[in-house]
């Protein structure tokens, strides 16, 4: 039985250096986007999903836990932020914090429930919990059901950064993405991350070494859910709405797909995967349900022939850790 990420190179100074170099290149490329004529809305959306996929990847790639319900954090944070901004009239920074707090509380509860089972059951439980939440949001008045919360004011961050200007908003989203990414990067390369990997490889052995694996898994789940929530809050400013699609199981599936395409358990894979999938949705928007079919084909193709993903293959080719 091979685990879902079949090779882990040890963290060496060289691997860390490689990853930092790629990080700097990525940050530089993203920083010049507004000057390239690329549609900033598209890149902002992709950045939100990239952060979301990175948060998801923290669980599957380093903890071996496949969450099929990560859309619940995206949607919950989105609803909380949207409600705080629109109904309570919060400034953007407090709106984001409200969303993060919502996802944080949710991840404690759902994490406590779902880590009680492993493997395939964990996936089914997270999926069922997100579906439970979907029906709750469908019925509670504050989400406005099928309509969602629309026309959310973007406001001024800290009172002077005007988020209604696309370029300003872009850099705010970029800073948010990079901060979240670095937090995950730091976590992976910490002693905590090492213990997580050992749980993924052999939980029994980790227990016998004296680690309380349930606590590690719960902590990883909370961290992942909260960062996913941060991505959801940022997305509210980009899309200016919060709707049921963000909580639907198909969204959870897309998060899985992005990470799978980019490379499970790779540092940069989820980012690449998010850009690939979002770009594909943009270009194929006119083909209706065929997008779903194509997504299904990519799932099948990735699982059968391309399990390392784009970044995983590149890393394998150059024998580097990326």
């Amino acid at each position, binding site marked *: *039985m091979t685990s879902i990420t079949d090779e882990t190179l040890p963290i060496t100074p060289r691997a860390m250096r490689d990853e930092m170099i790629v990080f700097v290149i990525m940050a530089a490329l993203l920083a010049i986007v507004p000057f390239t004529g690329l549609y900033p809305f598209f890149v902002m959306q992709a950045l939100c999903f990239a952060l979301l996929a990175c948060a998801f990847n923290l669980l599957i790639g380093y903890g071996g836990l496949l969450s099929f319900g990560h859309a619940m954090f995206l949607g919950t944070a989105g609803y909380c932020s949207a409600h705080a901004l629109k109904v309570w009239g919060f400034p953007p920074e407090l709106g984001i914090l409200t969303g993060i707090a919502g996802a944080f509380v949710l991840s404690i509860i759902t994490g406590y429930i779902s880590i009680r089972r492993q*493997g*395939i059951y964990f996936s*089914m*439980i997270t999926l*069922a919990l997100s*579906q439970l939440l979907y029906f709750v949001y469908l019925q509670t008045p504050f989400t406005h059901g099928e309509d969602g919360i629309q026309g959310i004011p973007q406001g001024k961050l800290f009172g002077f950064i005007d988020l209604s200007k696309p370029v300003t908003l872009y850099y705010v989203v970029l800073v948010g993405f990079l901060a979240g990414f670095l937090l995950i990067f730091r976590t992976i390369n910490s002693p905590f991350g090492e213990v997580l990997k050992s749980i993924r490889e052999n939980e029994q052995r980790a227990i016998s070494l004296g680690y309380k694996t349930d606590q590690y898994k719960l902590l990883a789940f909370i961290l992942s859910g909260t960062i996913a929530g941060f991505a959801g809050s940022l997305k509210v400013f980009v899309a200016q709405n919060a709707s049921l699609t963000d909580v639907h199981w198909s969204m959870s599936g897309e998060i899985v797909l992005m990470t799978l395409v980019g490379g499970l358990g790779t540092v940069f894979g989820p980012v690449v995967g998010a850009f690939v999938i979002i770009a594909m949705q943009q270009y194929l928007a006119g083909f209706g349900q065929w997008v779903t*079919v194509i997504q299904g084909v990519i799932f099948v193709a990735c699982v059968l022939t391309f399990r390392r993903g784009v970044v995983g293959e590149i890393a394998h080719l150059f024998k580097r850790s990326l």
Partner: protein
Amino acid sequence: MQALYAQLLVGLINGSFYALLSLGLAVIFGMLNIINFAHGALYMMGAFCAYFLLNLGGINYWWALLLAPIIVGIFGMILERTLLQWLTGLDHLYGLLLTFGIALIVQGIFQNYFGSSGLPYAIPDQLRGGMNLGFMFLPIYRGWVVVFSLVVCLATWFLIERTRLGAYLRAATENPTLVRAFGINVPRMITLTYGLGVGLAALAGVLSAPINQVRPLMGADLIIVVFAVVVIGGMGSIMGSIITGFALGVVEGLTKYFYPEASNTVVFVLMVLVLLVKPTGLTGRAA
């Protein structure tokens, strides 16, 4: 009281579908170590198959009840031979991802041609009308679905727990290498098992066609509820799957009567409670 009995009946019918689907999931998981995410899509294909048989071939409900599971079962076996068999030795999670992809493909194709609205499928003449039982009015078709599903579930249980073929199957679940050493073609058995599980899903689809209409996404939400049923019941026991399926259907029906707002969520809430009290599920062994 009439309304209560009516909701109980609806609950029993949903319970029949839960039982048939979770039974198939458990059988497939036992042999292939795969959680078949495509189960909902194959259930939908069963219903569409009955619809096509009637409208294109003029083949009636009774033949559809036999043919649709066979046709969809063969489709399932082709899937197993061409795609699923390559997953041997990989992490279980890849099976979930692959079958999720298959579900997206199948549902996407059907949605493309049939949209999201429902196609009608008439109740067969012999099962029209209803009976007055004194305390409630029983539509014959609905009673038929419950009784027939129960019979099929028990027959499957008998096949697996009480026949020689079932003994091979259970042995191959425990130790495929050893069973192969006895000269039994285990890969073929795996294919047939997948076909059986898929056939049960398709049968549930045919049964539900006259009640729920035939829709491309009819299985998409159902499969998530069935996952919760499987988590509650555990996949260790065939009889456990059947009983849990029917019981949860009844609980859902009762909720529809007493507190309708929670009828969509009650199964998930029960799953949470079971996980808090007995994480391994009601009948399951530790996985």
